């Protein structure tokens, strides 16, 4: 099959276009409008791009209405986890309610985690959830291995002040500021 040759002709310019000046004025008008338009820069440390609902960021461990950890140490999340970053040690629950077990140790290595959200889907108690916290930076690798206490305090230290439109209760604010 012969290769088709497409012949292109440049469009004819009329007198005004040949003068260059009129198209230049048109272009200058466009840029002048942008000059006075509203700017789209997000000035990062002061302003943030809000994340989409369902964004999978840092993990948190939820508490029940008494303030105890919701987790029943069923190992579902650790089993579902494809990168095996969750490490749980179970113990007899001291709470005196329906629960038999609770996690003595609940450790997530955030560097191994791929933030797939499988643990959240596997959890029968809605104890582990992913939050929209995306600014995960530390000075040491060891700091990325989060313990139970860190995960329980995620919403206090991260979510409420920075990502939620809900104003945190005064006690949290006092704790944060003091």
């Amino acid at each position, binding site marked *: 099959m012969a290769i088709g040759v497409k012949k292109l002709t440049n469009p004819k310019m009329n007198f005004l276009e040949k003068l*260059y*000046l009129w198209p*230049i004025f048109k*272009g*200058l008008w*466009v*840029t*002048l409008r*942008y*000059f006075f*338009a*509203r*700017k*789209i*820069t*997000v*000035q990062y440390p002061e*302003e943030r*791009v*809000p994340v*989409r*609902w369902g964004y999978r960021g840092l993990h948190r461990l*939820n*508490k029940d*209405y*008494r*303030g105890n950890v919701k987790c029943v140490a069923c190992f579902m999340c650790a089993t579902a986890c494809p990168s095996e970053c969750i490490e749980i040690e179970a113990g007899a629950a001291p709470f005196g309610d329906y629960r038999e077990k609770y996690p003595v140790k609940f450790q997530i290595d955030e560097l191994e985690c791929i933030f797939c959200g499988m643990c959240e889907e596997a959890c029968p108690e809605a104890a582990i959830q992913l939050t929209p916290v995306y600014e995960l930076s530390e000075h040491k690798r060891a700091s990325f291995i989060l313990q139970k206490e860190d995960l329980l305090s995620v*919403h*206090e230290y991260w*979510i*409420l002040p920075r990502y*939620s*439109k*809900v104003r*945190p*209760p005064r*006690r*949290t604010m006092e704790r944060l500021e003091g």
Partner: protein
Amino acid sequence: METADVVSEAEMKPTERKLWVWQQRPAKSARRRIVDLIKRLIILGIGFGIFVGCIAVFPFVDSLLGELLWGLVAASVKAALLLLVVFTAVAYLTLAERRFAGMIQRRLGPNRVGWFGFLQPVADGIKFFFKEDLVQDNVHKPLFVLAPAIIFIPALAVFSVIPFGPPDAGTGMQHYQLASVNIGILLIFALSSLGVYGIALGGWASFSKWSLFGGLRAGAQMISYEIALGMSVIGVLIYSGSFDLTRIVEAQGGSYLGFLPAWNVLPQMAGFVVFLVAAFAETNRLPFDLPEAEQELVGGYHTEYSSMKFALFYLGEYANMVVASALVTLLFLGGWLVPGLDLGALPPLLGAPIGIFAFMLKMFILLFLFIWVRWTLPRFRYDQLMALGWKILLPTALGNVILTAIFVALL
């Protein structure tokens, strides 16, 4: 027990479900916007005030030092003040370029260093000084070192014959000029065409093919446009009948039909357009920035330069821009003349600063035009550049000269 710390799912859920949308910058409140604007205007006003003040003390320097047979000292003091103004203006021009570029692209530009970014040039200067000054093995070292100076010194020297303010109403002496020569415009053209040596030699001495291409292009381009530039000025010279820049400006006083200022831009419209376009080409600004053409030539003639040598090239371009806009203002836009205001009739302590400020304001508007055009237009092709220079600008300028000559001869 207090359990309000736990955010329920209903609270976390946003009210409206959007896909990933970059949030626009939240609008500032009207009050905040006005306050910010006022702050910026105050900072700008202080800057302009310092500039005008530095120039406005020239007559006092003359009367204090000049009469004591210390003419040289007076000239040195004036030169130092002028250098201060020019260096600061050039440094802040780089900031203006970046800010305006950002705003044209719907960004904000550098606004972190100092008040609204007003200390950015200082940070840039410090950075330039501390950069490593690289000199490759194969360069022709004397010319390599000399080239930035060759481009920067003529650009500065041109300022010696630019008058910044109105002449003395009584004696007619021009104090706001370092050297009151009556062929100032010839001197300006003689000096400004030296700049091409800096670019061509810098490109050649770098021992880099891209630099050499840049230097060659610059040579061809600047020689081509020099002719159109010179021709377009001849119309003005015929029209005002003088080589003296002060006289040229003073000839533009008065008005047409009572309301249009009698600036040369109206009778010399063709000359104005040709001069402006040629000035863009002479300063290597964007529609004609083929000598540096970073997409094709890496960086053109300053590819191999770093540290303060590069800074000199960079600042030389901006100094050339200031010279070009000063020339356009003087030749076509009435210099320090304010429409509807007779500066000579005002008391000299008021009239002169107003004139200097008007001059600087017109220059600032032209410099904004330079930046605005740079961030609007794409680069010309090389044949388009040559065709524009030789086939359009030169005949237009020549026709303008002939028409002006006939017009002046008939009147």
